[in-house]
Every structure is written in structure tokens, then in C-alpha cells.
């Protein structure tokens, strides 16, 4: 799975959670969009958890394998992340080609 694929999945899951929580996409989401862990973050703590679980399911389906993404992320320190930095972390955790 390429980094572009991961970014695409991150944005798709982010939009899905935002739709559920009524969070508008303004400005448009992009790699610099702060996801979690800062005052400017798009998602609150529950939203972040739902987003990560949904992202793991999407990546599992795409990879046809258990990525254990959430477990791996929570094993490490999950701090402030943007769409881009999270995509990098995901790429390093589950492997793939840039």
C-alpha cells in the first residue's frame, strides 16, 4: 500500500466521521489538517478513536490482513497528528512502498 493510498483512506475516514458528527470540511481537508492532539484538531477524543478504528478496518480490508493499527498506535505515544504525519506513521507501522 502506497502513502497516497493511505492518505486517501485517512481522508475518506475523516470525512465519514465528520459527517456523522456534523463537522464541516472548511477549509478542505489536506495533509496539513490537524487531526488529533491539539487545540486546532478537527476531531475530539471520541471522534479520534472512531476515526482510527474505521481507518484500521479500511486498511485491513485493503490489505486483506490484520494491520493491528490501533493497537500499534496506542502502544506508542499518540500525540498531535495531522493527516500527513499520521499517514507517515501508518506507513511505517504497516509497511508499504512510498
Amino acid at each position, binding site marked *: 500500500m502506497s502513502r497516497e493510498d493511505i492518505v486517501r483512506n485517512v481522508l475518506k475516514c475523516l470525512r465519514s466521521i465528520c459527517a*456523522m458528527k456534523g463537522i464541516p470540511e472548511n477549509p478542505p481537508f489536506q495533509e496539513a489538517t490537524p487531526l488529533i492532539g491539539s487545540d486546532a484538531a478537527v476531531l475530539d477524543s471520541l471522534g479520534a*478513536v472512531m476515526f482510527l*478504528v474505521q481507518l484500521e478496518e479500511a486498511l485491513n480490508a485493503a490489505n486483506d490482513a490484520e494491520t493491528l493499527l490501533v493497537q500499534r498506535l496506542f502502544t506508542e505515544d499518540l500525540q498531535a497528528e495531522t493527516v500527513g504525519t499520521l499517514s507517515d506513521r501508518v506507513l511505517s507501522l504497516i509497511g508499504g512502498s512510498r
Partner: protein
Amino acid sequence: MSSSKTRCLLVSDFNIQPLADFINHDETEPACEAVVAPFGQVTPSLLELASGDSQSRYDAVIVWTRVEGIDDIENFGAALIAAARHVKHLFFVTWARPYFQRDLGIASMRSGGSALNLMRMNVGVCEHLSRQQNIFVLDSNAWISAAGAKAWSSKMWYLSKVPFSSEVFQMAARDFKSAIQAIQGRNRKLIVLDLDDTLWGGIVGEIGWEALRLGGHDPIGEAFADFQRALKVLTESGIVLAIASKNDEAAALEAIDKHPEMVLRRSDFAAWRINWFDKAQNIVDITNELNLDLSAVVYLDDSPAERNRIRSALPAVAVPEWPQDVFLYTQSLLELRYFDKVSVTDEDRLRSSMYVADRERSKTKQAFQSVEDWLKSLDMEVSIEALSKANVARAAQLFNKTNQMNLATRRLNEKELLDWAAEDQHEIYVFRVSDKFGDYGLTGLLGLKVDDGRALITDYLLSCRVMGRGLEQLMLSAAIDRARCAGVSEVRAKYVPTSKNAPCLSFLLNQSQFQNDGEHRFKWPVSDPYPCPAHIVVKK
């Protein structure tokens, strides 16, 4: 908080925020504003509600707990009932257990087994709550089975104390909103159907009724027959069927009358327009004939082009997407949320036959020289009853659905109606109507408030099915009789305009003979006899 939104409180021993999110941001009607009670504080939240402190803040309360959090069913049920006294509606969500919680397999359904105990707990609490008119039960098992194996999310539980996946909460939010719609009497009641490849397989005008695929030892025919059976069941709960089909009328009716596997016959349809005209106009004609609003209609058609035509021409009509796959027809019908209702009354069960009787009445009307002669020929009878627990379900339905002949268009649920009528000097009467063609059931309601030497008509509403037959005058006459008994000198009525009740104002201005006091106020001196229609017999 916006006053137009239904305000909800969610009480739970798990993190129920996802349900609040779906309720708040789902675009389906009604608009709601849900807030979550403090996490895990089920008993304190119910006690606070029972104290009445939060009485004015919430229209609805949803209580959804895990079964592990319940110590005593009776105490829990009593707490729900106490809380419900201070909110409009309280919803209890049934308990469920995850599919992976097998316990000891078959032992779980034996005496003392966990699965059997859970069933008993659900039945026990539902029975305990069933006598409460403003407590409703939502079935979580339907949402969980729809979400499948992913319904329970161990991951979400450990990370955020959310036991279910988003799909479960989404289904719950939709069912909750449908329930609110049903309580508010905003469910739809007319299904307009296409015929070819919707009600049966094939084009009847081309292949003849004998060659239609319907019933028999044929999976496709069986699917169409099952679809008809599901529609037939809906008619037994008050949903009315009609046909709008581009077809040759004689050929189509012949199929309906003669095909041996037809489940729905001519008498199951309240009206039909089978011709080559625009279906949108045909649907408008059908609603005019049945005296129904377009917002009461659901249109089912296998043709995407016809569906789009109706959507654009008649936006008030609900036009669900319809599968190309006939094997999914019945499932698609059963999944629709348009027909939810709080209870099924005798009037609901008889509605289809009432419309058929109406057709017979209309036919006979043409044979008379005057409307008066026709009315006399109907042998109408009316019985008048005080509001009671026995008739409140239908009364509330009428109260919340009647738009046209409605003086004030108040909206009250069953409990609120009974509570209002129980107050000093408040009275509510209901009117049952029948004629030689059949029983219309409970079709009129009169609310009175007697004080200061006057009787004020607070509620005056009549089903559109019996409008224009003298019942309007008979109900006013009943109000005046009651005022006379109470010893007051005057009956007053104040019309409250809405977008739909102009017929009521027209009647008051032109036919009631009440004095127009200006500003939509009308009155009648009790000392004057009121001309009661002679063609209606009032049964005591």
C-alpha cells in the same frame, strides 16, 4: 436550544455520544437536539427526571443500558415510570448480548441460562412498562442483527466505552426519529403502486393476465406474490393502497380480478388511475379522490424514470429507491420507515374497507337530485362518548393527524389528552360515525373548557373522510347542549390558522351560523336553539 427541534436526553451506562451525533446530524425528519446525561449516571439521571427539575427541558428521553448494569428489574422499571411522568416520551432500549458471548452454548437457553434470563428480563420490563402510555420500547436486536458481526466492537469498548459500531447507532437514530414521527402522527398512509413488474412480473397489456409471473412454482412469481402479501398485511394496519399505472385499464383490472394467484384484489385498492396520462397528475387525482394530502403518499414503481418524474413533480410524495431485483421487493417494503405507528386502532384495521364503502357512496350520490336527499339516504348514525382509556389511542391519532377541519391544531399524545381532559372544567368528547355503507369509526373530537359563564371550544376536529355531511353542525350542537347543561350562557370558539386548516375557517364563516366576533372568534348564545342536522340519528 431551538424550539422547533425535538429535545432529547440520552441516559446510559456506556458512552452513548455516537447516538447523539447521529440523532443531531442525520438529515431525516424530525430535527432533533440530543444531549447526553453524565456518563454512567443512570439512576441519578432518572431520579432527577422524576423530581421534575428537568421537566421542561426534554421532549424525549432514551434510556439505553447494558444488562450488566441492572440489579433489579422492578426497581429499574419503577424508576423509568417515575421519570416518564415528567417528560413527554420515554424510550427504553431492550437489552442484548453479543453473539460471541456463548457462555456454555446450549446451556445458556436452559433454565437459569444467561440467554434465557436475558429474554425474560426484556419481556419482564416490557410488560412492566406496557401500561404506560408515554413509554415506548425500541428493539436493539433489530439494529444489532442489521449490523451483523460488526455490531459489537470490543475495540471501541476498550478505547472509549462505546460497545457498538457506528452502524448500530445509525440504525438506532433512524428508528428513534421514526418513532417520534409516528407519535406525532406524521406517518404516511397511502401507497400508490405501479402494476407491471412492480405488483406482478410482465407487461399485462402485451402478454395477457394468464402469462403474468405471479405465485405458483416459480421463484419470481413467488417473490411477487409475497410482495403482495406484505402489502396486504399493511392494509390491515391502516395503510391504504392505490394504483397509478400506464396501462390498459380493462386488461389490468381483468388481471386483478381473475388471476388466481393475485393476493390483492380490486377491493383492496381504495382508488386507481390506470391510463396513459402523466402519473404525477394521476397521483394528484387519487389524493383528491381520497381527500388525502400528498405528504401522506409513498409511491412504489420499478421504473427509475417514473420515480424521478414523481420526485421532481411532487416533492411531498415519498419515492423510495426501488431494487431492480424482484427478490428484494418484500424486504425493501418492510424496511421502509414511513408507516410506523404507535398502535393499531379498529379504525386502522377497517380503513381500506371504509374507502371502498366511500366509493359505493359516491356512486349512489350521482343518483340523487340534491345533496340533502343523498345525505338522508345514507342513514347516518353518530354516537358520542367522553374521552376514556378505551378510545384514547384512536382519539390521539385523530388529534395529531387531522389538519383541514381542525379549529386549533393542538398536538397532544395519549397521556397528555387524558391528563388535559381530567382537569377541572375540561371535557373531551369523541364522535363515532356510521351509515348504511359501513362504519367510519371514531372520526370527530370536541374539546371544551367551561368557566366564567362560557364554554370555550378548545378543540374541534373532524376527519376529512366525513366532512360535508352535517357532522360539523352536529358537533357544534353537542357543544351547545353541553354548555346548556353546565349552565353557561355562551359557547365560543377561536380559530387558530395554520397552512392547512382553511376549510375549518370557511365552515365557521359560511355554514356554522355562529356569530363572527372578529379576529377569528365565533360565538353562539346558548339560549338560542342550534339547528342540528335532521338526517343524523344520535345514538345514546
